[in-house]
């Protein structure tokens, strides 16, 4: 029998029971959390691996055994790879810097030149650009897909290069991923493309002797380098490394071999287009000097629940400055960022100056031609402007806006502007000999469309001359 309370109790009895129950539950959750984190400390290092085929190019198949690496690799889909300078979306460089259209007149880069995107987009981007057409060789596939090593092994490297781009369209489907850098059996880093190994061999070095830390740079150097297609028909992908990795040694190499990428449509100068000498330029920087690899900053080690892995979302280190920079640089993230952006801003300003001067030099040589200057008279300045632009391009086409080697970038750009101005002086003398003393009035190339319209007659004249020959 219950005793009737004389008045209502302050807290009803059932509420006490519920409160006590909730407390027990809460402590239980806390205990579970502690136990989970205790368990993390002894995570078994045993992994159950799905065996992979020798030529497995589908990253999702690798992802079954290596989910963290796979998921971080997938994040290269996001286009926000570079903070600070470049707008989102495709990032049309020609619209941002219309001088480039003049610099590359006569070369396919005047059709389109966009901000680079992550590895995830490599196949989509190479098939989507108007620079690729029916005359493109299969060599352009080399760095775009992990399907390539299989096709090279099947058809032979020489035959692969000699084929057309279209020939392999149906067989190349996966973007840059696991097999490009890893051995599918042991997961060890390995060189899967012949270009780098051949360049090492010509220098008397053996790439298979590289240490693990060196490999964390060299797998990137399979593609993020300057290269050219050797031989009109063979299109053999070749690194111009025989004299060294500096822009001067590239100049020597190309002068020695006589290789020319195209003839400039306005100035008639023999031109070399640099690709993206990221590896070469970064060798001149302080990070490389101190033994820091590409992966140390672009794929930093990350810890997740007591498990260490390398972040495969290759992108600007500024996107995660904490793991990429602050492990060594004990400054605030704001300071790290400000430092990098200031270096990139300085380089950007120097690049813009060089672009302006180079464009003026090409136009002035073109004007000297219309005044009746002969090829013999113009040979010197044409050669010089080709070299100056190659110097500029060594920095311009490298990713990182000079950050990989700030001092070297500034030196090269200074030299590029210097050579271009020397070239303009000499051109001015030639124009004066033809009776023209006034400076050349610059055309309006303030937008991409105006610049493209401006070079159009030169392109047609070049085409007509080629047809007549």
């Amino acid at each position, binding site marked *: 029998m219950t005793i009737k309370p004389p008045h209502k109790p302050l807290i009803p*009895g059932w509420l006490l029971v519920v409160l006590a129950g909730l407390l027990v539950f809460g402590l239980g959750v806390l205990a579970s959390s502690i136990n989970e984190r205790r368990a993390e400390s002894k995570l078994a290092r045993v992994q159950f691996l799905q065996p992979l085929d020798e030529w497995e190019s589908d990253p999702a198949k690798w992802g079954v055994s290596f989910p963290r690496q796979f998921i971080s690799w997938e994040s290269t889909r996001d286009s926000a790879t570079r903070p600070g300078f470049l707008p989102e979306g495709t990032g049309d460089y020609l619209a941002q810097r219309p001088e480039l259209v003049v610099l590359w007149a006569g070369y396919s880069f005047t059709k389109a030149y966009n901000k680079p995107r992550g590895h995830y987009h490599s196949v989509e981007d190479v098939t989507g650009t108007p620079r690729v057409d029916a005359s493109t060789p299969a060599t352009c596939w080399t760095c775009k897909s992990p399907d390539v090593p299989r096709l090279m092994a099947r058809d032979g490297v020489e035959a692969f290069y000699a084929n057309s781009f279209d020939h392999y369209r149906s067989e190349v489907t996966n973007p840059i991923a696991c097999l490009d850098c890893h051995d599918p059996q042991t997961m060890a880093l390995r060189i899967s493309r012949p270009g780098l190994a051949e360049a090492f061999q010509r220098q008397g070095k053996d790439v298979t002797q590289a240490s693990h830390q060196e490999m964390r740079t060299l797998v990137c150097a399979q593609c993020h380098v300057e290269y050219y297609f050797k031989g009109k028909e063979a299109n053999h992908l070749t690194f111009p490394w025989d004299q060294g990795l500096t822009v001067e040694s590239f100049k020597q190499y190309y002068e020695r071999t006589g290789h020319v990428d195209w003839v400039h449509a306005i100035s008639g100068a023999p031109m070399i287009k640099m690709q993206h000498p990221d590896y070469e330029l970064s060798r001149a920087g302080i990070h490389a000097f101190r033994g820091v690899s590409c992966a140390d900053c672009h794929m930093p080690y990350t810890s997740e629940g007591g498990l260490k892995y390398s972040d495969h979302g290759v992108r600007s280190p500024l996107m995660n400055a904490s793991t990429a920079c602050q492990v060594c640089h004990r400054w605030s993230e704001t300071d790290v960022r400000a430092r990098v952006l200031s270096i990139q801003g300085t380089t950007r300003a120097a690049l813009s100056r060089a672009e302006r001067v180079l464009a003026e030099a090409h136009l002035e040589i073109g004007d000297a031609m219309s005044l009746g200057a002969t090829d013999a008279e113009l040979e010197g300045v044409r050669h010089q402007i080709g070299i100056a632009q190659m110097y500029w391009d060594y920095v311009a086409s490298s990713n990182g806006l000079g950050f990989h080697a700030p001092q070297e970038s500034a030196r090269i750009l200074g030299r590029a502007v210097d050579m271009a101005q020397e070239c303009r002086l000499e051109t001015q003398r030639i124009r004066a000999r033809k009776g023209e003393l006034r400076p050349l009035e610059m055309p309006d190339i303030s937008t991409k469309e105006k610049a493209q319209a401006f070079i159009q007659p030169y392109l047609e004249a070049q085409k007509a001359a080629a047809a007549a020959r």
Partner: protein
Amino acid sequence: MNLRERLFDTWRFMPGRQRTLLLLLLGALVGMGLYLVRISNFFSYLSDDPRACINCHIMYPEYATWRHSSHGRDTTCNDCHVPHHSVIAKYRFKAEDGMRHSAIFTLRMEPQVIRARPEAIHVINDNCIRCHGEQIVHTNLADHGRLCLDCHREVPHGRVHSLSSTPNAAVPPLDPVIPRGWMPGSPRQPGGSR
């Protein structure tokens, strides 16, 4: 009628079955509390044993680098990381830091790179001077607001810091939750004795 009596009324007029349930739950609460004390190695935090700091695995890099450094033989974590000018200051600092660490670790908010807070930096610097005071001759450096660690950057945790900077480091394992010797067949522990 005062508050205490009114609260007591709740208990007095509770139906018997509710009372039993409440008592059981209160018992569970006490038991769970003891269990928490056990699995969290609660009492280790009152000691100066560096193993208390690796109750959480994210401190493994700090432990491993300290253990292999010149400081690994004669100092403990607390020698540098808590103030020593008074016992009260020491335990107050420990309590504050400990609560913050456990909250962050439980909520999984730990950063990839652990860095000392400004308060902690001053505690560390004071402790450098506490032991090495006699060796500091060039006091003009310290007079200008410089810290010992501004130059001695690698002391003692090395150059590169992050949660993943010492993978597979050999650190002492956590003690098992069930005390050694309670189970007749419990696994042998490193060191040979049960």
